[in-house]
């Protein structure tokens, strides 16, 4: 009997150590698979908007993702999502469909975005107008600096949008 409880005790000691070690390994694994600092640091892009033409979609690259920048024409509907630079209104959004991440194509004649993967559609404000995408295109963190747009930095306009809950 005494011998059995001794073995039980040893078993429990081992179990305890194993559990502790397991947690440590999990933590290390989590950290190992996080994006590397160099990946995170390459997170700022500056775009000059002074030469932008209305109704012509510009695609910039930020954090490896395409960023849609579209100067709105006066007849396009105004939206709270518009980024205002000087007198002009822009749509600025991450160009990845909120369904499963394909890049929707802009159709300048129809003034909308069509996602070929599953047929989703967005309007010129980035709002989803035909499913399956469940939500509007995501607005990346930006700061307006004169006629320039800094992507990756949260400026006052962006913060206001974020508070209003319309960036995503």
């Amino acid at each position, binding site marked *: 009997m005494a011998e059995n409880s001794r073995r039980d005790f040893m078993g429990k000691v081992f179990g305890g150590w194993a559990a502790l070690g397991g947690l440590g390994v999990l933590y290390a694994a989590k950290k190992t698979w996080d994006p590397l600092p160099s990946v995170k640091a390459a997170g700022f892009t500056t775009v000059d908007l002074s030469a932008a033409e209305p109704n012509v979609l510009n695609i910039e690259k930020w954090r490896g993702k395409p960023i849609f920048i579209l100067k709105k024409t006066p007849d396009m509907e105004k939206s709270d999502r518009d980024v205002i630079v000087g007198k002009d209104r822009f749509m600025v959004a991450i160009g990845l469909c909120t369904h*499963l991440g394909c890049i929707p194509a802009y159709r300048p004649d129809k003034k909308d975005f069509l996602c070929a993967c599953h047929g989703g559609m967005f309007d010129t404000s980035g709002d989803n107008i035909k*499913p399956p995408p*469940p939500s509007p295109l995501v607005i990346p963190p930006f700061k307006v600096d004169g006629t320039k747009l800094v992507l990756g930095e949260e400026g006052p306009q962006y913060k206001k949008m974020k508070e209003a809950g319309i960036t995503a």
Partner: protein
Amino acid sequence: MAHFEKANSLHEWLDQRLAIDTLERVLAKEYWIPKNINFLWAMGMVLAFTFGILLVSGIFLLMYYQPNVELAFDSVNYTIMREVEFGWLWRHVHAVAASVVFLIIYIHMFTGIYYGSYKKGREMIWISGMLLFVTFSAEAFSGYMLPWGQMSYWAGMVITNLFSLGSLELNGLVEWIRGDYVPGQAFLDRFFMLHVLLLPLAILGLIGLHFGTLRIPHVNNQDGEEIDFEAEAAKYKAGNKREAKVISFKPDFLSKDMFVLSVFLIFFFYLVFWHYSFAMDPINFDPADPMKTPPHIYPEWYFLWSYEILRPFPKDPGLVAFGIAQVIFFLLPFLDRSPNVAPAARRGKFNIWFWTMLVDVIVLTIMGKLPPEGIYSTIGLVATIVFFALWISLPFITKNEKAV
């Protein structure tokens, strides 16, 4: 120490140390197989052999492949295809085998369903087989990433986005899986590791398990007959081979296995030399471009049916449906409530269930390949609903099945 006689031959020497005679007897000569099973039962051997082909051709490809976002595409499409002598052969063998292996897996699965080989005592055979199917799927997907073409990239994008779990918006989880905001170097490296090490190891282990699960309940047969394997084996060993309902795996059944295998290999090498392109998507011959999605993306043919189940719904229900479709086959032994082990043809309503399911999966596969528009969307939606209706109805139609 154990006592050893002087060995008179290499065979004896090894036998004393490794018991190779006993091993051969237990694993082959006295591994009993029912007599009345048809060529469909040889698919297991075909699969094992195809996996071997994948392993060997993969090793040759591995010696020239570069898991680097800048170099990967050219290492496959230039170095292996043009510079390495016979590099094209290994690549075509690997690609064709990766595609054909799923055809055989599906035949193997539907054979099991048709003859009720997942039932009463054979549940673990079915479950370990399904685990193999899922691991093979992961292996195929991770391998598809490696040439780093357009389809690789965008399939990687779409499939990893599934892990944001719809409206839960777990983008942190997706970025963690990728090690980047989009599929990039970290992503390619980890899928490379999965494809060449972790998943093949898992597959090898699961193949061992799958074979092991057969040992005790023994393989099913064409009539679902319950065989007393020990009594029948005794007859066989006593020389009464004509009356015994079983034969030995080696050499009796092995000869049939090998014959089916050789027919399969003719078909396989016909594909490798004359029709390898069916296993290669033309879009994947464009290098990955994160700034441009191909207009129409779809997975390889063997994933089309489950991809089609994802498509007709809005994001969240689509994901749930897709998730269920991935695991529902695991539950087959428990959803089929009938105690009958018999071919579907003799099981009344289950026969209808079986053929409807088979046709439905084929319809889903075809619709998954066509663009998601108009009538195709409608057919896809109907086929998806039929798919779920079939699974829901299964316990009810099998509950009161007449004994056969």
